[in-house]
C-alpha cells in the first residue's frame, strides 16, 4: 500500500501556532531589539558599500591612521589608509554570510545524523552518537584551528570547517527529540498505513521537533560568527585584502597604543551581531515552546 500525504496522520498540532508565536516573540523586547540590529547590520553591509565613496581595498598611504570623526573617513582609516567603514561593511557581508551558510550546513549534517540515529537507534544509533561524543571531546577552537591550519584558507573552506565543528549539538538535540517522538501514537499510525521510513522520519517526526531546531539554528549563527572571528583573528580564516570582522582585528593589537579604534570598531560589530542572534534565539525559545523555558 502506498501512502499518500492525505492518508498519513500528521501528528499532534505544533505547540504554538504561528500567530501566537509571533505575538509572544514581539513581546520579548530584547529579541525584537536583536532583530532590528541584525536588520540594520545586514542592510548596511549589503547596500552600504554602494553608497560609500571609498573602496574597502583602496590603499591611501597618505591618509593612514586617520581617527574616526576627523575628516572624510567617518570611522577613520587603518594602517594602510583604507576606509574602516567600507571595510566593516564588506567584512559584514563575509562574516554574516559565513554565519548563515555555516549554520545551514551544520543544521543539515546535525539533522541528518540526529534523525537517523534517533529513528533507527540500536547499533547504528549508538555508533553515530558515540562519534558525536568523540568530536565533542575536542575543545571546538582546538579542532577548528587544527583543521583550518592544514587546509587552504578561504571563504568556502572557513565556512565548511565551522560547519564541520558545530553540527554536534544539533545532532544531540534532534536525536533526543526523534527518539521520544518515534514512540508516539501518530508515528505508529503512520507506520501502520505503510508510510516509508524516510517519509516518517522527515515528514511526520521532524516537523514536530521544529521548535528546538529553530532555536538551535539561531544560536548556531551566533556561534558561527564568533568562530569565524576567532580563526580569522588568529590568521587562519579570511585572508587580506578581503576583510572580515575577525581579520580586521588581526593586526590591531600592534597599534593598540596609537590607533585603538582599529581594535574597538570591528569588535563592537561582532559583539552586536552575536548578542543579537543570542537574544533572538532566547525570544524564539519563549515564543515557540513555553515548556522549553530555561528560566
Amino acid at each position, binding site marked *: 500500500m502506498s501512502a499518500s500525504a492525505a492518508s498519513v496522520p500528521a501528528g499532534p498540532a505544533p505547540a504554538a501556532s504561528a500567530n501566537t508565536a509571533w505575538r509572544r516573540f514581539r513581546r520579548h523586547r*530584547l529579541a525584537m531589539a536583536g532583530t532590528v540590529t541584525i536588520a540594520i547590520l545586514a542592510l548596511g553591509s549589503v547596500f552600504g558599500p554602494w553608497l560609500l565613496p571609498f573602496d574597502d581595498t583602496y590603499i591611501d598611504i597618505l591618509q593612514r591612521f586617520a581617527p574616526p570623526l576627523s575628516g572624510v573617513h567617518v570611522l577613520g582609516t587603518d594602517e594602510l589608509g583604507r576606509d574602516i567603514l567600507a571595510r566593516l561593511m564588506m567584512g559584514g557581508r563575509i562574516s554574516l554570510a559565513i554565519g548563515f551558510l555555516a549554520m545551514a550546513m551544520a543544521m543539515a549534517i546535525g539533522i541528518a545524523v540526529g534523525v537517523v540515529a534517533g529513528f533507527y537507534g540500536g547499533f547504528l544509533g549508538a555508533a553515530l552518537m558515540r562519534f558525536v*561524543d568523540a568530536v565533542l571531546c*575536542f575543545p571546538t577552537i582546538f579542532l577548528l584551528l587544527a583543521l583550518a591550519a592544514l587546509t587552504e584558507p578561504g571563504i568556502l573552506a572557513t565556512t565548511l570547517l565551522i560547519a564541520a565543528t558545530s553540527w554536534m549539538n544539533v545532532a544531540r538535540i534532534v536525536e533526543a527529540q526523534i527518539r521520544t517522538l518515534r514512540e508516539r501514537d501518530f508515528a505508529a499510525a503512520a507506520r501502520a498505513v505503510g508510510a516509508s521510513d524516510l517519509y516518517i522520519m522527515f515528514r511526520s517526526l521532524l516537523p514536530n521537533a521544529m521548535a528546538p531546531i529553530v532555536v538551535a539554528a539561531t544560536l548556531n549563527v551566533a556561534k558561527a560568527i564568533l568562530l569565524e572571528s576567532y580563526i580569522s583573528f588568529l590568521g587562519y580564516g579570511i585572508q587580506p585584502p578581503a576583510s572580515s570582522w575577525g581579520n580586521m582585528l588581526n593586526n590591531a593589537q600592534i597599534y593598540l597604543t596609537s590607533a585603538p579604534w582599529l581594535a574597538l570598531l570591528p569588535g563592537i560589530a561582532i559583539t552586536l551581531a552575536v548578542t543579537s542572534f543570542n537574544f533572538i534565539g532566547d525570544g524564539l525559545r519563549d515564543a515557540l515552546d513555553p515548556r522549553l523555558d530555561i528560566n
Partner: protein
Amino acid sequence: MLPYLLRRLGQALVLLLIVSMLGFAILHLAPGGPLSQFALSSQMSPEDIARISHQLGLDRPLPVQYADWLWRMLQGDWGTSYRDGSAVLAVIGSHLRATFELMATATLVACLLGCWIGILGAIRRYSLFDTLATVGAMVALSIPTFWFGLVAIYVFSVTLGWLPAGNRHTVGDDSVLDLLHHLIAPALVLALVEMAIWARFMRSSMLDVIGQDYIRTARAKGLPEWSILSRHALRNALLPMITVAGLQFPTLLGGALVAETVFTWPGMGRLFLDSIAYRDYPVVMGILMLSAAMVMLGSLIADLLYAVVDPRIRME
C-alpha cells in the same frame, strides 16, 4: 559503585580511542604533510626531503603509522617534537603549569562571582539587578574573548598603566607577586565567559529549588527567610553546579588558548598554536589527546562527585 566506575572508565577509553583515530586522521589526511614547509627551502633538495620522510617513518602506510604511534603512546613515549627533537611529554609538561594557573584562577573567580550573581538574581527575580545581570550575562557570552582581551589591555595597560600587557613574568623577577600581577588581566578575561555561564545556571537552579514544596513547607513553618534560603534552598541549588563545573572544561581550554595568545602567556594553548604553525604533528597530537582526556575526566569526576554529595542519585 565500582561496576559503574569501571563501566564509565571503559567507555572513556573507547571514546579516547575514537578521538585518537579522529585526530590522527585529521592531521595526516590534510594536504601538505609536516615536511611541506621544507619544500620551499632552497637548502633542501627533494632527495633530502624523501630521506627525512623515511627517517621519520612518514612514508609508511597511515594505519601502520597510527598503530606505531598508539603502541608507543601507551608505553609513555609520545614521540619527539619535529621542532627541536625534545620529548613531546616534556614539551607539553613545561607549558601545563602556566595554563593551569590561568584556568584555576579564572574558574575560582568565575565560580564565586557567577554563583553570587545567580543566587541574588534568583532571590530578587525580575528586579533591576536581575534584569541587568541576565542581559549582561548574555552580552558576556557574545563577546569574542580575544577582543575583550584587547580592550582590557587598552584600558588597564595602555591608558591606566596598572597592569602589564602580556607575558608571565617581568624579566629577572620571579616573585609570586609579579606572577599575580601578570595573571590578573588574562585570568579576568578568561573568567568573563565562565562567569556568565555559572550565573545563568546558578540562577535557574536556584529558581527551580525555590519553587519546590519543601521550601513552601519551610515558609509555612515560619522559618526566617535567611535560614530558608541558605540552609534549605542554596544547599540543594548548588548540587547541579558540580555538573556545570565538569562540563566547563572544553570552553575553558578553548578560552585559555585565546587568552594565552593575546597576553603572550606561555601555556599549552599557545604551544598548540605554535606547533600547528610549525606542523609539529607529534606535539599537536599530544595536546589534542591530553585535552580530550581532561574533558572526559572532568565529566567523569563531576558525575562521581554528584553521587557522593547527593545520596538520592543511584549509580546504575
